[in-house]
């Protein structure tokens, strides 16, 4: 009662302050804008007070780190115990060159690997396929067979280094390859640590490297969950991603909502197939974007953790605490970096990275300043890594857990984002779930609308991008050196494939591929069959083509 009175008094006092002090100043010195808004359109007040958090109960809504609802973090010690994994996404051209870059980054203090594959590899085409022409090795490393994978991890101990692979439609194949390489190194499957992205829904929504239609794709994912939760307990079998959704133009609320909705769809599919969420739930991980609005982003991460914990507990009745925890990797927002005055991007990335750290991320990739120009050079990749190290060792923010908790604005925003995201999730539930929502194009449309509005704001200079629409410099500034991928990679890969097909046991390969086809057409788990095919040195394209025959190919049909 007394508390309520105090709050009411405060509300009155704020109104008074607003009418007198605030308005007086504004009449002489107007504010920069009529309204200040978050990325999702919420109007931000000039000042926040305890009254704005009066409905938040510390014990219930915020809690302690490492305890439900995990708003403050999934571990009790967070960075006091161990820093987040500094995991820079890298990979280009051939396995040999990428291996060199990985070893360099590990020497420089990077603590985990993140593999970037080229588009043919992501979409299941060998380097000698017609569809791969011009694309081999351009946006990532070209992997055509286990042979390439062995070169990729040469001298990299898989029992010590965790490996994250950004691979989706063909993740079963790459995961099998990783297991096979580990085996050759003497590393048991249950020792392997890492992540496969394996999130097909966001491919349909925002990224485009899908191969098969939604239903068979979901089946493959569930197969991977089943196989992996038994054989690869330390491995994250999915990285449910919001990063790309945000990059495609979504706002912060949509990023959280659609990602969680994707997560719900995967958990439902797995449960339907008979798996126990208390078991596979611990192999799930997430991937978010660290965008510009510093305070909004910190609040967003906290809201995401809370929502997921509640979803797993209340909706799926999960009792294993480990399975309630939203563990996530973050990448700073590539789409915010400019081609003009590229050095400015170092500052942008720093702020974005800081928001992810204050948001409690488990793993982080910082973009290089030449993001808008090409793949990172060694120099720019090093600066990006140093950015993380400086935040970790020199800023002091890692000395306590969730330092911004209690800020009236942060707690208020955390709650607001949670509520707005839940509204979207309910809407999607009413549509019949995320798969349905994606099939009808609802999600894509929402995202495109946000993207268009954002672009219009930039064009009208309502949103200022320093160096791009404001504070520009005339042409004639020194050109930035960029990384060029040698076009000979394609030729080299083609000859490698030819050679491989001559020395391997082609009968064995045929046999394994036939078994795979049968398994795919039935209800059997295809993972063991893919593993066998991979060990026989069947190529990625050969394996994917078998699956294409059985599952069919997806063709985008929507949306604008």
């Amino acid at each position, binding site marked *: 009662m007394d508390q309520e009175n105090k709050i009411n008094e405060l509300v009155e006092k704020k109104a008074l302050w607003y009418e007198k002090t605030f308005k007086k100043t504004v009449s002489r010195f107007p504010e920069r804008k009529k309204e200040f808004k978050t990325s999702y359109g919420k109007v931000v007040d000039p000042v926040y007070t305890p009254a704005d958090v009066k409905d938040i109960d510390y014990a219930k809504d915020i809690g302690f780190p490492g305890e439900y609802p995990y708003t403050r973090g999934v571990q009790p010690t967070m960075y006091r115990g161990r820093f987040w994994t500094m995991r820079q996404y890298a990979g280009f051209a051939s396995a040999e060159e990428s291996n060199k870059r990985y070893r360099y980054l590990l020497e420089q203090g990077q603590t985990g690997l993140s593999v970037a594959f080229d588009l043919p590899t992501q979409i299941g085409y060998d380097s000698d396929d017609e569809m791969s022409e011009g694309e081999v090795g351009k946006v990532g490393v070209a992997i055509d067979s286990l042979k390439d994978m062995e070169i990729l991890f040469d001298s990299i101990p898989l029992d010590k280094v965790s490996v994250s692979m950004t691979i989706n439609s063909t993740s079963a194949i790459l995961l099998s390859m990783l297991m096979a390489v580990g085996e050759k190194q003497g590393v048991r499957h249950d020792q392997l640590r890492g992540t496969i992205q394996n999130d097909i829904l966001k491919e349909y929504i925002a990224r485009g490297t899908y191969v098969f239609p939604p239903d068979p794709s979901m089946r493959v994912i569930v197969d991977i969950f089943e196989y992996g939760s038994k054989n690869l307990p330390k491995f994250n079998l999915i990285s449910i991603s919001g990063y790309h959704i945000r990059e495609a133009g979504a706002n912060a609320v949509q990023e959280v909502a659609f990602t969680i909705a994707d997560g719900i769809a995967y958990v439902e599919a797995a449960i339907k197939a008979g798996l126990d969420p208390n078991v596979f739930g611990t192999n799930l991980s997430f991937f978010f974007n660290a965008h510009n609005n510093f305070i909004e982003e910190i609040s967003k991460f906290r809201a995401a953790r809370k929502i997921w914990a509640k979803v797993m507990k209340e909706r799926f009745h999960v009792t294993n605490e480990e399975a309630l925890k939203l563990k996530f990797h973050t990448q700073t927002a590539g789409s915010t970096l400019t081609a003009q005055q590229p050095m400015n991007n170092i500052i942008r990335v720093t702020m974005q990275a800081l928001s992810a750290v204050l948001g409690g991320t488990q793993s982080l990739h910082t973009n290089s300043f030449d993001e808008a120009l090409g793949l990172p050079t060694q120099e720019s990749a090093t600066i990006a890594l140093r950015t993380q190290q400086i935040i970790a060792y020199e800023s002091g923010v890692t000395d306590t857990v969730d330092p911004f908790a209690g800020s009236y604005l942060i707690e208020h925003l955390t709650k607001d984002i949670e509520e707005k995201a839940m509204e979207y999730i309910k809407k999607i539930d009413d549509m019949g779930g995320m798969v349905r929502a994606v099939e*009808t194009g609802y999600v894509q449309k929402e995202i495109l609308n946000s993207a268009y509005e954002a672009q219009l704001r930039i064009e009208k200079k309502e949103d200022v991008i320093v160096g791009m629409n404001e504070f520009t410099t005339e042409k004639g500034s020194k050109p930035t050196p960029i990384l060029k991928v040698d076009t000979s990679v394609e030729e080299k890969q083609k000859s490698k494939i030819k050679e491989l097909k001559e020395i391997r046991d082609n009968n064995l390969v045929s046999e394994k591929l036939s078994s795979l086809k049968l398994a795919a057409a039935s209800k059997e788990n295809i993972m063991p069959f893919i593993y066998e095919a991979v060990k026989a040195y069947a190529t990625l394209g050969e394996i994917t083509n078998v699956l294409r025959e059985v599952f069919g190919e997806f*063709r*985008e*049909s*929507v*949306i*604008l």
Partner: protein
Amino acid sequence: MITLVENHPDSAWKIIETLKKNTLRDAPTVGFTGSPGAGKSTLVSAYVSMMAAKNQKIGVIAVDPSSPFTMGAFLGDRIRMRDISESENVYIRSVASRGSVGGLCDAIYDIVDVMKAFGFDKIIIETVGAGQSEIEIVYVADTVLLVMSPDSGDEIQMFKAGIMEIADGYVVNKIDLPQANAFSVKLRNTLALENDVKSKRKVFEVSASKNLGVEELEKWIEEFYSDMSSSGEIFKRHERRLKRRVRSNLMRVMDDIISSQEVGKNSLREFKSLIVKKYIQQEACDD
């Protein structure tokens, strides 16, 4: 060719006359209409696919609305027909409505004629969408199918008048959805309550994306057309089309003239006779 007739409606007839000298036959035209989201494009794709596989040459005209404010248009049907767009036997043309109100575009008759002159076996037209007034398709096509989807709320209610009256057949798409059967039943009941003519029309249950029921539909369209030919119904429709076309042409010319004339202090009668005079002048010039 099509661009020419689209952009130069006054000379269109001359162009078509020249082309017509080369063809002997009049290709059947089938129209697909229905609300956005009903799956028209997917259905057209499945339907055309079937015919293209039998080596028939098919022309598809996909109409999308132009913005009334900017006159720009987003022509997004082609992307939904990827399966057929690669076939050598299929020609797809995306057309913007350019302010036309009947659900198609002003130049549609001319475009269809150009296509016929090029010797297609069949011409398929997909309209903007259906409401009370988007009924132009009925004049342009020989056979009209209304495509409906069970997940679009109270469609049957919306369609009571207008296109529901004039479609030759009804296609319930997405028959794999759980609520599809109930929808189909409701539709048949509604039709049964309506007048005799309507209630005799065929209702088809299909899933365009899963290619279910499309073969049946294709057969029926063939049969329906040959029935019309033998019963003479087809001539009635051609006559109706010609009248409509003349009217449409007249209206367009009139609109042009009206908008270019100054009203000044003319009374209603004076203004009308001024317009008629101008029209006769114009016709004389054209000859």
